[in-house]
């Protein structure tokens, strides 16, 4: 199995994806924005299809840019709606998410009817196709993962301060708006990168499951970050190995199911943080 190049590419690709998603996911989780991943993943669909229609082929960076633009725009739109209207966050998210996703499915149907559309396997966006990851994809994933990790490291103090106490962050003059923009961009980057592997619906599991699982057993952000990465690596290893042994099993969904089972185990071994001292 480990000599099989295809298996290795799939494993490397999903591991890189898991690392980026979980690193960003810790902060998304701590800011109580866990559903933002869903908003972005559904809303990137029209952008990706437009990127495809413009190029006429599945060019990774064009699809990435297209998806990034509509996904990011949808998230900003949701935040604006929550801020200026009487709508609650869940309603605003549901409205934006379904509108963008609906538009995406319409465009996708159009694109697939085009003469060159069918072979491109555009429907992989919906459910993902991790087993089809190639050495080219893995190269792009490595570049994106390195970028995401570098940005998070660079802004980590700011992200922690804003997530913990944004009023204080404003009071000491930190550029809170720009720091949040950075986090949204990193989240969008991780989501768009992962969609081709695990699909629109499941990508947010890679963002949130590792963060939640690590939160159950850790007391500091440093611990949480390393546990989240470990959990996400276990998920991707479990998923790729199982779907290799049973070739009919889809890799992406198996990764998420493994994550869910890990979560149950971690819940049983969770840390009791309620005891007070003094």
């Amino acid at each position, binding site marked *: 199995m480990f000599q099989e190049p295809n298996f290795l590419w799939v494993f490397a690709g999903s591991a890189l994806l898991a690392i980026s998603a979980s690193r960003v996911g810790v902060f998304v989780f701590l800011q109580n924005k866990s559903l933002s991943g869903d908003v972005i993943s559904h809303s990137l669909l029209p952008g990706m299809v437009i990127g495809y229609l413009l190029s006429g082929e599945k060019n990774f960076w064009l699809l990435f840019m297209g998806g990034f633009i509509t996904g990011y725009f949808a998230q900003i739109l949701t935040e604006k709606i929550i801020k200026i209207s009487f709508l609650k966050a869940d309603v605003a998210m549901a409205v934006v998410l379904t509108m963008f996703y609906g538009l995406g499915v319409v465009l996708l149907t159009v694109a697939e009817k085009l003469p060159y559309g069918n072979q491109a396997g555009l429907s992989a966006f919906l459910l993902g196709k991790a087993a089809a990851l190639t050495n080219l994809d893995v190269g792009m994933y490595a570049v994106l993962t390195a970028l995401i990790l570098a940005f998070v490291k660079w802004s980590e103090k700011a992200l922690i301060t804003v997530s*913990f106490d944004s009023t204080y962050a404003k*009071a*000491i003059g930190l550029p809170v708006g720009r720091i949040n923009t950075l986090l949204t961009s990193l989240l969008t980057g991780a989501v768009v990168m992962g969609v081709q592997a695990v699909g629109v619906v499941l990508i947010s599991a890679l963002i949130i499951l590792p963060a939640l699982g690590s939160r159950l057993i850790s007391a*500091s*952000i440093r611990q949480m970050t390393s546990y989240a990465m470990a959990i996400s690596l276990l998920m991707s290893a479990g998923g790729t190995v199982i779907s290799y042994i049973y070739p009919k099993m889809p890799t992406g969904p198996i990764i998420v199911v493994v994550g869910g089972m890990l979560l149950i185990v971690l819940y049983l071994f969770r840390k009791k943080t309620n005891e007070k*001292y003094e």
Partner: protein
Amino acid sequence: MNDALNITNLTAGYLGRPVIFDLCFTVPQGVICGVIGPNGSGKSTLLKSIMGLIHPMQGTIQVLGHSIDQVRSKIAYVPQRESVDWNFPVSVYDVALMGRYAPDNIFKRLKNSDKEATLKALEKVHLLEYKDKPIGQLSGGQQQRVFIARALAREAELYIMDEPFAGVDSVTESAILKLLKEMKQEKKTVVIVHHDLQTAFDYFDYFVMINRKLIFSGQKKEALQPQYLFETYGGGLPALDRIRTAGNAREEIAKS
């Protein structure tokens, strides 16, 4: 020397509705100033305006003689304890260290002097031995002291605190009072929002009394007039009734 605060014609509020109207007052440097008033009197709105967290609808605010953005490094702000999630996975030290953060070092490595100042601040609030504890494991009073340590770590000139005495134990209360005395000796200025009238006159030596408008600002000896307390609290407090009765009795004795 510039006033710590110089506020002229300040009107501020939320969503176009003013909460405080036309406030004019100054707070000199080196005082421990209590901002007092009943619930809903606009104390927090005033603090948020001073910190530039909301924009005034009208009027000007000078902090240490400048606009707030020019002097943020000299100001330490202590928000209300309930304003954050205390289950957030950070340690006591992590929070206190945030006192050293500023726009020019947030994306860089911190210096050793930052770490030393943080440890010194934790020692002052008796939390040094708890420095690696997650903040979720602290009592309410200890949490308040973490916030104060974060402000002390800043080594600021002006400290602005929103209800630091709210719901704290007596250990914390006396620790904060001792710190206030030290800060006064070091000629620092402290502005504290406080709603408990019973204790206000023990804690502070300078007063700003508001009830959506300015009622009084000045030294403690002038602040102790019943008329100001009536205007501030609208005569709805039993303590005020006692002062009023005592005042009437004194007048009657004087007449007879």
